[in-house]
């Protein structure tokens, strides 16, 4: 079956990576292409389900990696025809591989430096927000903040007088979905903050809550 050339854009569209004319053309296309629409609708449900599950999807997989190295080690040692010097060399190499492989597990994660400020709020490493930090003309298309480190997961929360939207990402920038932007109105005040979590799910930083207003027309 010939693939439709627009099929490649399905994922980018669902991850809000298409914009402007490209986005319009793709949207018009799926009104006209039953194949693409069917794939799009199915893929949309899958992407939403994956985003809801997040880390839970792969939690069990991190645990299972180490034993394989030990069994290779064991298998090599039991091979009868190896000369003694070869066995020694291979064993030494494997011991080093095992040790260096296990070091990440043995090293404890440095505890985050937390303290209570005057408002009784927990603050740790400083996480700086980049944009938006002042009043804006239209609802922001993106939220951006400074990178904190490697393997950090960020949780973004946007508020008017209550929580409007929350999302997590490993990047330092996130697209605000159309339906949230459409609910943000001129003259209104909003605020947002970002929390950073280590790969083990420990909270390591909370940004300040930054307020911004969408200028009245």
């Amino acid at each position, binding site marked *: 079956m010939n693939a439709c050339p627009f099929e490649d854009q399905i994922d980018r569209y669902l991850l809000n990576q298409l914009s402007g004319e490209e986005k319009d053309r793709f949207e*018009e296309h*799926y009104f006209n292409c039953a194949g693409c629409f069917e794939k799009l609708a199915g893929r949309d449900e*899958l992407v939403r389900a994956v*985003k809801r599950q997040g880390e839970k999807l792969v939690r069990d997989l991190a645990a299972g990696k180490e034993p394989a190295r030990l069994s290779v080690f064991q298998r090599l040692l039991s091979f009868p025809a190896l000369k003694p010097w070869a066995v020694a060399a291979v064993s030494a190499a494997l011991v080093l591989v095992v040790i260096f492989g296990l070091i990440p597990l043995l090293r404890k994660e440095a505890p985050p430096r937390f303290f209570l400020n005057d408002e009784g709020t927990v603050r740790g490493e400083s996480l700086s927000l980049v944009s938006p930090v002042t009043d804006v003309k239209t609802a922001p298309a993106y939220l951006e903040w400074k990178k904190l480190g490697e393997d950090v997961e960020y949780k973004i929360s946007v508020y008017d007088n209550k929580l409007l939207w929350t999302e997590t990402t490993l990047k330092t920038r996130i697209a605000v979905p159309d339906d949230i932007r459409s609910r943000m109105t001129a003259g209104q005040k909003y605020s947002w903050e970002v929390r950073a979590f280590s790969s083990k799910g420990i909270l390591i930083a909370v940004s300040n809550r930054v307020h911004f207003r969408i200028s009245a027309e």
Partner: protein
Amino acid sequence: MKTKTEGLDLEQVILKYKPVITFRVKKALGSHGPDWEDVVQEILSQAVQKIQSGEFRGDSSAGTFLYTITSRRIIDFIRHKTKVLKEAPEPVPLADPYKDAVERERSEMLASALAKLKPKYREVLYLYYYQELSRDEVAARLGIPVRKVSERVNYAQKLMKKLVRK
């Protein structure tokens, strides 16, 4: 009762395009609250009216015709809503316990289907859709060819479809 106008069967048009119009409207306005339902109905009414009045004669494709109406209606709605919300805050939409329960059940079904997938599929879905890495980056991370990334995503979707149907 079917109305044939210039070879276009109205009922068929509505049946065929309602899902795609609904998808587009929900994406723009969100799927919570009654707004999207009202807007979809308005779009369909407008389309029917234009076909019946002869304003649409089939010179462009039906899909493009409906896409145009849908896009304009979404823009108009957002513009109107922006004006309305300037005066008063948005009322909290009435909870629909039946709809909420149906949605929750579907989410749970999808979550348990995902959990049943083999690690190699879950890994790819996690890296590609949750971490939003490119196909090249996913391939490099897992040590597999790029085309395998697409294959696994497509196959995972097929498996999910089967698992959720049960």
